[in-house]
């Protein structure tokens, strides 16, 4: 074996066997190193990602006026909603992996293209939500939303005030949009465009994105990234619509959500 390798190395560099052999050898060794490191570091990177996401959630809650005081008292409740019935589900939220549920055919529903505004193709049957309550009154409802942007899936938290209509915050926690253009969805300028906007007019979802936003239902668009901006609006339309949290929101308003 060692001899064969020596003979291989001794071949002239112009020899095709040597060329192909060297290319294969370098590629294989490099692939092994990359794969090995990626697998070894994956748990650590995942942990960092979750910590960063929790940090963003905390920062978002802090930024909503009047909420940080409530967090010291009762804190934030993590619940799971059955999206089809629109009621709180009995599933234990502590180790609920929503991303895994969305990919599992037993725990998700395929969406017909016409209903799939957010272009996510499958929707999990149950979703996490977060609630901040003062007594029995809801002060803040945080919903996880996701949908296609320009070149990646954008994942965000949508925080609604107690009227279940006014946007308290919209924070993107994961995206792979074009750096410098679409990636600006994570920046304060775009986030601020959402704060205080309203979503429903009557029963109809009216929120939209335009450049030069004015009025209650308009979010300022990112110039140079209209597809990304529309993506965020489309996912809010989907997730607050009948195939998303729509039934749950209706039940919440009627007080029948099973809280």
């Amino acid at each position: 074996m060692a001899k064969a390798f020596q003979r291989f190395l001794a071949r002239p560099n112009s020899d095709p066997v040597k060329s192909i052999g060297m290319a294969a050898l370098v590629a294989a060794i490099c692939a092994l190193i990359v794969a090995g490191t990626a697998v070894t570091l994956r748990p650590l990177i995942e942990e960092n990602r979750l910590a960063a996401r929790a940090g963003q959630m905390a920062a978002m809650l802090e930024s909503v006026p009047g909420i940080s005081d409530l967090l010291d008292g009762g804190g934030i409740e993590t619940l799971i909603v059955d999206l089809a019935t629109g009621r709180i589900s009995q599933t234990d939220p502590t180790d609920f992996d929503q991303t895994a549920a969305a990919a599992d055919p037993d725990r998700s529903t395929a969406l017909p293209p016409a209903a799939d505004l957010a272009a996510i193709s499958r929707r999990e049957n149950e979703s996490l939500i977060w609630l901040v309550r003062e007594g029995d009154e809801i002060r803040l409802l945080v919903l996880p939303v996701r949908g296609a942007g320009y070149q990646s899936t954008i994942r965000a938290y949508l925080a609604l005030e107690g009227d279940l209509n006014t946007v308290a915050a919209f924070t993107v926690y994961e995206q792979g949009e074009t750096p410098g253009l679409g990636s600006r969805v994570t920046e304060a300028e775009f986030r601020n465009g959402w704060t205080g906007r309203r979503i429903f007019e009557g029963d109809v979802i009216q929120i939209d994105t335009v450049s030069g936003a004015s009025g209650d239902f308009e979010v300022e668009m990112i110039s140079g990234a209209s597809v990304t901006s529309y993506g965020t609006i489309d996912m809010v339309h989907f997730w607050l619509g009948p195939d998303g949290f729509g039934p749950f929101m209706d039940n919440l308003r009627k007080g029948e959500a099973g809280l």
Partner: protein
Amino acid sequence: MKQLTDPLIDKNPVAVHILGICSALAVTTSMATALTMSVALTVVVTLAAGLISALRSHIPNQIRIIVQLTIIATLVILADLLLQGFAHDMSQRLTVFVSLIATNCIVLGRTEAYAMHNPPLPSMIDALGNGLGYSLVLMSVAFIRELFGAGSLFGIQILITQAQGGWFVPLRLMLLAPSAFIILGLLVWALRSWRGRLAEKPDFAPRDTGSEASS
């Protein structure tokens, strides 16, 4: 020793050879990102030069570029993964630019021009020098941009801004990409005025404007 010190000033890859500009513009809004990027590039270019130089007698000439790129890309992915694992915030701030070290002309330039023809140790010294030269320019540009754009250095407030009750009005321009071009341009000009022999002869002699007007 000249291999190590030459690329700092006289053969600086950024300011004299104008290589690696893209990342130099993108990551210099703060000293911390510039330092991380500098360290990442210096480590990658040094290791790549060492590895490629060690393999140089067995790299077939027809496929040498792709073999070099494979080795460089492997090192870049390693650097990126290590950053994501151990300095997650920093990797988020640097976004794609760590991965783009793979296409940085400085790295491929050093391995192709030097490491392919020289033994590992001199190659690594040469690469280290070039990495440090790149770092020097990055840190200088970042120093100016962060100090005047945000009033801070490494995130520590030096000039108290008006928003915090001080006197300093941050120059927003400094945080935008064009300012890096301007600073880099001034840097190149200053360097060429100081070391006159670095200035190239003009490619064309400027025409006499007087005769042009009359023709």
